[in-house]
């Protein structure tokens, strides 16, 4: 359940940003995240953990909006970029596993809407 730890990290980033804003921010209404499909992060666990981590913060009752980033890999057999839905998926062209992941591991906070 590393998602709870990650949500505490997220709250820290949000509050640091809020504290350095002028004029002061009293409440965070909406938070936008981007999570890669290969990042090893469970979206439901994030949605479950976020309100718990946010309880005593400016982001209490904030809405979470999550955009997912598709996984991509460079297949060394085909020399092509292919979409990868999981770490267990073979190259969609040659069916082999000889690839390097090029996208899909992102886990970042993009922006927040505040009052």
């Amino acid at each position: 359940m590393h998602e709870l730890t990650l949500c505490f990290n997220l709250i820290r980033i949000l509050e640091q940003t809020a504290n350095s804003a002028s004029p002061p921010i009293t409440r965070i209404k909406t938070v936008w995240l981007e999570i890669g499909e290969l990042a090893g992060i469970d979206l439901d666990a994030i949605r479950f953990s976020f309100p718990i981590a946010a309880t005593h913060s400016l982001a209490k009752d904030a809405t979470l909006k999550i955009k997912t980033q598709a996984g991509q890999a460079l297949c060394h057999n085909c020399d092509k970029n292919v979409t990868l839905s999981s770490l267990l998926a073979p190259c969609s062209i040659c069916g082999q596993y000889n690839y390097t992941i090029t996208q899909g591991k992102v886990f970042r906070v993009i922006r927040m809407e505040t009052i």
Partner: protein
Amino acid sequence: MCGYCGCGHDHEHTHEHEHDHAHDSRIIQIEQDILGENQRFADQNRAYFAKNHIVALNLMSSPGSGKTTLLIETIRALKQRCAISVIEGDQQTDLDAKRIAETGVPVLQINTGKACHLDAHRIGHALGDLALSNNSVLFIENVGNLVCPALFDLGEKAKIVILSVTEGDDKPLKYPHMFAEASLMIINKIDLLPYVSFNVEQCIEYAKRVNPHIAVLQTSATTHQGIAPWCDWLLEAHNKKITT
């Protein structure tokens, strides 16, 4: 609260206008990696290790894979050839640290409490408490867990995943993130192979499916089978021949 748009603004007026909510809400761009803070601490740890020629290895596995026993046998086999220190990570107790301390090497126990993994910040503090020798090997025994520790860079030179044969040969497929991150997989407790249905070849094939570059060793801390090649791997890492 404004009953029309729910924007939290107390005002008495009708809502025939089309406001853009600029009177209240603000959008603030952040664009930050949520693991960025851990990464900064990991980079600091890595710089410290590089400066002092310390090879730090992050050992990860399920609980009960035999990590600590393997580590004790490794320390006994290696401690005359290089300086060794250990950081033990567990949610509770200092049982593992006590076992390691009996080998005579410096050891520090970290209790993570509720957390299911070690993070780079805790390791940074531990480095302050453990006076590590230059040109030494630091083993970081992570919390027994095949999921969460995979995400947290500690600043190590290599992540090593230990899988015991009693756990089943399908673990690389069930917990792919761990095996994708590791440079080396150690298949441990191989003395028990005659008693369990664990297909070594199949396990290696699964691990290479999620990580074609993963190296594989097979060990038994009980019979000492495979301990010598494992020590060779460590000495090679110590001599900086292994790139990860």
